[in-house]
């Protein structure tokens, strides 16, 4: 029988989840803010500049007032790393859900989670499969939140390319933004998952959105330039900066496969991490 987690641990995980969500919803990570600043330096088009200036002013307002950056506070996607001493029990998942419900009331977050067919709203941002919780082993107990708005999420795509089509990856990524236009609130961050399986590529694409966007390797840079060459610009009103960054995560795949997933993220590339120290739960 699985060892049961202590109530102190569960409370600490719930509190860390709620606290990370509060931070992610009301402020942007420093690397994302810096990328928006760099976009303003590069952008010449007055309409595009006006959009970026609104974005910068919005970030300031939200920070000053502790209010959500965007009314689409998204659905919570949660990543946990667990040390060997902490088992991944149902109670732990429930503690994360409790944190989501706390943040929904406290921040407040818009209740966005509905039944997929009846569209009935659960009113607390939890439900079947929500929050999505991804667990990996680690040295420390950490809770990372990635609230995901629907405007950008709805523009995401997956392709099962042929192994001979690796030269088409840039085309698929750029085509994703061509189809998306202004809908995902550019300048976007694109998470690209390459390899693994149909589902694994999508998971890698989302995990790529957790990577800092300070730096891009030459391949990421090439994908980013292919997107920015389209000239879609901030909010689809034209301009130089359509993507703040493209981040790639790779996994090995079947020799007959080349899955490629693009997870589109709006300029409000929200994420935050909390470490839960052992003394917090003992």
């Amino acid at each position: 029988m699985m060892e049961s987690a202590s109530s102190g641990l569960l409370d600490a995980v719930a509190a860390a989840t709620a606290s990370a969500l509060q931070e992610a919803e009301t402020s942007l990570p420093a690397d994302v803010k810096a990328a928006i600043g760099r976009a303003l330096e590069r952008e010449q088009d007055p309409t595009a500049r006006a959009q970026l200036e609104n974005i910068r002013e919005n970030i300031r307002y939200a920070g000053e007032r502790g209010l959500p950056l965007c009314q689409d506070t998204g659905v919570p996607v949660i990543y946990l790393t667990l040390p060997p001493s902490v088992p991944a029990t149902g109670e732990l998942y429930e503690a994360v859900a409790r944190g989501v419900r706390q943040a929904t009331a406290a921040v407040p977050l818009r209740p966005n989670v509905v039944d997929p067919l009846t569209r009935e709203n659960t009113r607390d941002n939890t439900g079947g499969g929500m929050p999505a919780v991804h667990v990996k082993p680690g040295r420390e107990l950490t809770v990372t939140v990635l609230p995901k708005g629907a405007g950008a999420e709805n523009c995401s795509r997956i392709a099962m390319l042929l192994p001979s089509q690796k030269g088409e990856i840039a085309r698929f990524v750029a085509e994703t933004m061509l189809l998306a236009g202004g809908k995902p609130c550019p300048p976007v961050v694109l998470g690209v998952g390459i390899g693994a399986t149909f589902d694994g590529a999508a998971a890698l694409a989302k995990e790529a959105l957790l990577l800092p966007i300070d730096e891009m390797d030459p391949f990421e840079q090439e994908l980013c330039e292919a997107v920015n060459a389209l000239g879609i610009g901030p909010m689809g009103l034209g301009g130089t900066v359509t993507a703040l960054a493209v981040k790639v995560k790779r996994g090995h795949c079947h020799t007959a496969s080349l899955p490629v997933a693009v997870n589109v993220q709006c300029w409000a590339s929200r994420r935050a991490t909390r470490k839960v120290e052992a003394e917090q739960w003992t």
Partner: protein
Amino acid sequence: MDLTTPLGDEVLDLRAGDAVTLSGTVYTARDEAHLRMMEEGIPFDPAGAAVYHCGPVIRDGKVVAAGPTTSARMNALSGFLLDAGVRALVGKGGMDERVREALRGRGVYLAFTGGCAALAAARMQVKSVSFEDLGMAEAVWEIELDHLPLIVGIDAHGGDLFAAVMQKAKLQFDQQFNSYKGPGL
């Protein structure tokens, strides 16, 4: 140009790409509210009105967050509002040729910066609400607006900044990738 509701023929002078501010009353409406208005009628005077595609977060009668939602979802749902005298649709991401034609000689589509919910909320006050049973995000909120900075996305002469940008993007995409000789996607 500074626009104030109710809007009149001054909106006909605007051209796609112009920067404007909007003050006065706006009414929020998303998918469900449009469907309800089609069935039960418009719960406000549509003459010269501005409709904002927005599902706000409201707490204790105050606007907490109220950025624009994706307007394209309302492409098929907007004609009746313009027929009834609505002069401006406000949202993000642009709208299709049905709306462009419906706006011709009558009104404009104004683009606000997506995600700028806190900036918008700082310039808004709640006056009243209709269809509250649809839930916070889908209800029709009557909101008093103070100089919201907007871009004319579609004008009353068929000018459409979004369509122009996407047309150029498609050309650029074709130039960039159609020389590739590999198997097509």
